[in-house]
């Protein structure tokens, strides 16, 4: 409160009034000032307070002396001894001030133990007042158009953290938030890369276990071995071929095809030499873990099998169904087995055949159709469904 000096209440030549608000009480720090309710005026240069009744009683403080200010919502102010007389706690604006310069004009207080004052708004209007004050403090118009009378300004170092207000403040906040987001994202990905490292370890581990199983065969039951192998199968590829490592285009697909050739051999043999492309897609991507393949890349890689002389082939059935099959997997054998099965049972539907061979229905149907195409089977298409019979014609 000692920063205020007496004023005549008149504006200087370059000074303009920004806003005025009635019913404002001043606080010296937390204590109620010994002044009555008055009008608070905000100009481009100063914060002025004038007593409501006694217009001669007018005090002012240059805006340049304000360090920062903040809002204090109604009802949460500290109830000091002097404030206890008022029953309601009004919304306040707390204004922190630089120490008064030595050449300061005299004011109502010679000294004060507080370095801040409060404006208590008895008749509201604090929101607009705060907004205007923020604007003025951002624009700093008092610097551009100095009043004729030099206003003593505090040049002391702006101690402590300056609190950003106004558009600059908002911008700064946005910037901060962006940095925060950046940090969060990079942290999140850090976790992922850690996970990848761990995944690699897991693959290594599973591989070593697999080797141990091989050594200790007999100690563990067949069933367990098989189950464990199926786990391992889905664990995957230690260093998958990716676009990052092998560029894009043909070279990438070629490398991919080679890797597919290695990893699909075993599962293909298990499944009788043929797998639908969708099945392959699932298996491959499960094994790759994070470096997922697009269906397109997979098809393109599979198309490379033949030119790379890999023991696998991509086969497109007449129906458009695509399968990956072992090269050794001959059509004649397939047809012969289909014919054998059908002859044995008299007749078969695709579903029954699928069950018999442990194939997918799609594939078993393709086989039956193939055998039909070769003239070894014929069909019976009735309300009961499509059945295949040995071709007796």
């Amino acid at each position, binding site marked *: 409160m000692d920063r205020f000096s007496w004023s005549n209440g008149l504006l200087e030549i370059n000074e303009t009034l920004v806003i005025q608000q009635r019913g404002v009480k001043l606080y010296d720090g937390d204590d109620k000032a010994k002044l009555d309710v008055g009008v608070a005026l905000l100009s481009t240069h100063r914060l002025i307070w004038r007593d409501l009744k006694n217009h001669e009683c007018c005090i002012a403080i240059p805006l340049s002396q304000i360090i920062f200010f903040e809002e204090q919502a109604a009802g949460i102010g500290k109830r000091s001894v002097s404030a206890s007389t008022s029953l309601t706690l009004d919304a306040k604006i707390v204004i922190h001030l630089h120490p008064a310069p030595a050449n300061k004009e005299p004011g109502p207080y010679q000294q004060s133990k507080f370095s801040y004052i409060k404006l208590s708004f008895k008749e509201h209007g604090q929101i607009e007042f705060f907004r205007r004050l923020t604007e003025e403090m951002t624009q700093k118009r008092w610097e551009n158009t100095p009043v004729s009378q030099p206003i003593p300004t505090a040049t002391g170092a702006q101690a402590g953290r300056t609190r950003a207000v106004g558009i600059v403040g908002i911008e700064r906040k946005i910037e901060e938030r962006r940095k925060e987001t950046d940090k969060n994202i990079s942290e999140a990905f850090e976790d992922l890369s850690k996970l990848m490292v761990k995944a690699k370890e897991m693959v290594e581990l599973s591989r070593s276990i697999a080797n141990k199983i091989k050594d200790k065969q007999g100690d563990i039951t067949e069933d367990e071995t098989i189950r464990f192998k199926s786990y391992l199968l889905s664990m995957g590829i230690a260093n998958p071929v990716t676009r990052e490592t092998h560029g894009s285009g043909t070279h990438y697909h070629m490398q991919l095809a080679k890797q597919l050739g290695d990893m699909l051999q075993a599962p293909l043999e298990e499944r009788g030499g043929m797998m639908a492309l969708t099945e392959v897609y699932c298996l491959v991507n499960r094994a790759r873990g994070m470096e997922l393949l697009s269906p397109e890349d997979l098809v393109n890689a599979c198309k490379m099998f033949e030119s790379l002389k890999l023991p696998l082939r991509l086969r497109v059935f007449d129906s458009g169904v695509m399968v990956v099959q072992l090269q050794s997997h001959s059509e004649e054998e397939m047809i012969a087995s289909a014919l054998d099965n059908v002859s044995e049972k008299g*007749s078969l539907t695709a579903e029954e055949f699928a069950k018999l061979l442990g194939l997918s229905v799609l594939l078993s149907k393709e086989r039956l159709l193939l055998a*039909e*195409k070769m*003239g070894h089977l*014929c*069909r*019976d*298409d*009735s309300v009961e469904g499509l*059945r295949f*019979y040995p*071709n*007796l*014609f």
Partner: protein
Amino acid sequence: MSFEWPWQYNFPPFFTLQPNVDTRQKQLAAWCSLALSYCRHHKLYTLDVMEAQESPVFNNKKIERKLSLEAIQVVFEELRKKGNLEWLDKNKSRCLVMWRRPEEWGKLIYQWVSKNGMVNTVCTLYELSNGDDTEGEEFHGLEEWMLLRSLQALQTEGKAEIITMDDGKGVKFF
């Protein structure tokens, strides 16, 4: 004498038109011979496609299979190509079945005529199809349009001449 069904008749795929070209050809051949022998056995000369579907030939109740209308059309079309069938209307709903082609009938009739020394004589069409003399012959009871066709076939061969008389038609064999 009951009709003897071929083995295919109890083979369910027989009632599904086979997509395989070779298989289908064999299947159609079997159908043609079945249809013709059935008609011959029952002395059928005209067939209605809708009715045919319900007749035992195309509908095997025992194995619960019947040939679809489309498939029957295909079979009939096949018969037509072989000269054993003629459509009676443009919609192809009724047809004449000739389990013996007119030329074959003509041959049979001519054989009988020459055997009985009736060459150079005139006889009516009724005599040929319903006369006491022809009883026991295959062409006995032959429908008139069929008989006429056969005689026309003979006529083109120069072995007979059809004469139009007041109360019907007659034929003179040479």
